[in-house]
């Protein structure tokens, strides 16, 4: 049996309504759970970039990249393993303010984890942390002991170590 791995899929697309649905349907149809998905602008004007994290075998991954690339408004799709990319996630915690002042341990956690205090008021304070999944998991565990009012984390975003020749390809199209 071929081993399942975590892959980060980067999809460059036209910025059109419905494309997210079209891409996620490719996974849904194959009963594949998406670990995280992020959509944003890219380095190319008017071109969107999806970052999708999924766990599967490489054979499966290649087939899915084929299906994604086949969509009319998809410009290019790539897949990478963790060691081929630089990746980050971001998270935000909302925690009761009294803890910050009354429990020194909280201050230590903030210091040691290098997270950033975004705001503090009488009722709550907000900290933000960007990093790898494990760092955020650890932070969540640490804060959990004291009570978290709200927690949210983003999907993974990633850039690749290798060059992605999307701009070049688009230029070729336009000439």
């Amino acid at each position, binding site marked *: 049996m071929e081993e399942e791995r975590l892959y980060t899929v980067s999809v460059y697309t036209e910025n059109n309504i*419905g494309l997210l649905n079209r891409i996620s349907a490719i996974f849904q149809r194959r009963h594949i759970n998406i670990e995280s998905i992020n959509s944003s602008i890219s380095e190319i004007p008017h071109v969107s970039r999806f970052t999708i994290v999924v766990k599967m075998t490489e054979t499966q991954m290649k087939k899915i990249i084929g299906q994604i690339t086949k969509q*009319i408004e998809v410009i290019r799709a790539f897949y990478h393993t963790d060691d081929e990319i630089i990746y980050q996630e971001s998270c935000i915690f909302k925690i009761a303010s009294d803890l910050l002042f009354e429990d020194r341990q909280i201050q230590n956690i903030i210091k040691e984890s290098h997270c950033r205090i975004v705001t503090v008021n009488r009722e709550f304070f907000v900290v933000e942390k960007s990093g790898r999944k494990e760092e955020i998991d650890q932070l969540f565990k640490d804060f959990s002991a004291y009570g978290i009012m709200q927690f949210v984390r983003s999907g993974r975003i990633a850039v690749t170590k290798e060059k992605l020749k999307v701009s070049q390809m688009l230029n070729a199209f336009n000439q």
Partner: protein
Amino acid sequence: MKKDASQTEIEEVTLSDNQSEPKKTVRISGSEAIVRCLIEEGVDILYGYPGGAIMPVYDELYKFREKIHHVMTRHEQGATHAAQGYARISGRVGVAIATSGPGATNLITGIADAQIDSTPVVCITGQVASHLLGSDAFQETDIVGISTPVTKWNHQVTKAADIPKVLAKAFYIAKSGRPGPVLIDITKDAQFEEFDFSYEKCTGVRSYRPVPTSDESALANAAKLINGARKPLIVWGQGVILGEAEAELKAVIEKGGIPSAWTILGASAIPTTHPLNVGMVGMHGNYGPNVLTNECDVLIAIGMRFDDRVTGNLNSYAKQAKVIHFEIDPAEVDKNVKADVAVLGNAKESLAKLLPLLTKNEHTDWHRRFKDFYDLECEKVINADLHPTKEGLTMGEVLKEINRCSNGDAAIVSDVGQHQMIACRYAEFTTTKSNITSGGLGTMGFALPAAIGAKMAAPEREVVAIIGDGGYQMTIQELGTIFQQKIAVKIVVLNNEFLGMVRQWQQLFFEKRYASTEMTNPDFVAIAKGYSIRAKKVTKRDELKEAVAEMMASKEAYFLEVRVEKEDNVFPMIPTGASVSDMRLE
């Protein structure tokens, strides 16, 4: 797009208009623009059903009725299947049109069928006014959301000014590369809105490469494998027909002396009587090409996608062979069967380039193997199907009579089930684009409306719909369309009073528990006559020949019901999960 590209497009449009003046615009409504776009794209016939959200377009269709013929089917599913039939026989884009909500959702089966069978179809749906989107307005449905997984492309238009570009793109995408269905949803306010109209055909979409290419080495490697093969086998699919590569394929087959088999959708690309045509692959295909798939040394797949009904169990499919895959859709390469050599591109170009690289060959001994298997299949199956000695009529003998009358020139439109397998096994074809059937989706109810589209697209052709008693009743209302439009299709219902294929499986795999497969059928002849369609029923062998001849000679629509043996099975058969080489003859 940069200047250069759009300049070229304008030039092409003015060329087609035979004018040298610059592009002119006219101020018209969105709905008029839709009809004008269709005319610009060369649409002569479209199929549909009116309703609230598409009424402005119907009003324009009325005004333009001298230029474009709208056919009202009796159900929107019929409209998509008719558009498919139109496309399949002609190679042109079929067009279907419907209103929002239920009109749009009724199109879905046909769209899904067109998607899996790569049929170029453009569907236009009306939508509630844009300010009502998302409000659960009357007859509002998210048809773009619903159709996303079954369309090659879809788009919603909310501004009239977007209509020409979007429709041009729709036709381009539907027809180019690997064809498929496109759905364009147009809000009612965009249909009413006026704007300055001009039309330019679409010549490219920057994120879309319709025809990929392989480097020359792929072809050289393919040729090397083929030239070195002792037991080569070609399996071609619909890619040959869609790519209009019939002549190139024939040249390759003949030069290489390669036994060649076809998938159900590839049927008719090469005449059935061609000496190197060894028959159909797949679950109910011919014995030789299936069994020998697991003996060939080089398997040359051309414009086919290794569907599970073709391959049987993949773990024991052609494991001994080197596989060469000629394919236009890169996502199909290595999807089901790993290719040793993949040649990407249009079959016509690839095969034309392959031809000079091939050495002339005959493979006489290898070819004899197919002949031996065919003789065995005749003895065990075919003779009893075509020349039965038992009392009950067989589906095969009906096909034999149709062949006799048509000389293989008829287009055969089949539905789904036993009769479909029999039709594909025994119909004789001399002309390409003549086997029109629902392959991938297996849509019962496909044949009657698809035959309408086929006959209207090619009125000079004889079009014979072969349908089971089950599938017939799924779209039987299209008799109304045939009646109203005076469409001279020939309709043959092979009535075994069962959902025959399901019954066959119940017999073989569910110990004859015939759950909900027996049919108490109406008087089909009376129904046809109710629509003023000439009709006849045959129950005995001695009536068959004359009845088929009468039907085929008819200049107008004709309905023929043939009562066939109730519990006949289709053989040979590769049971689900079995290997192609474990095909059962009985």
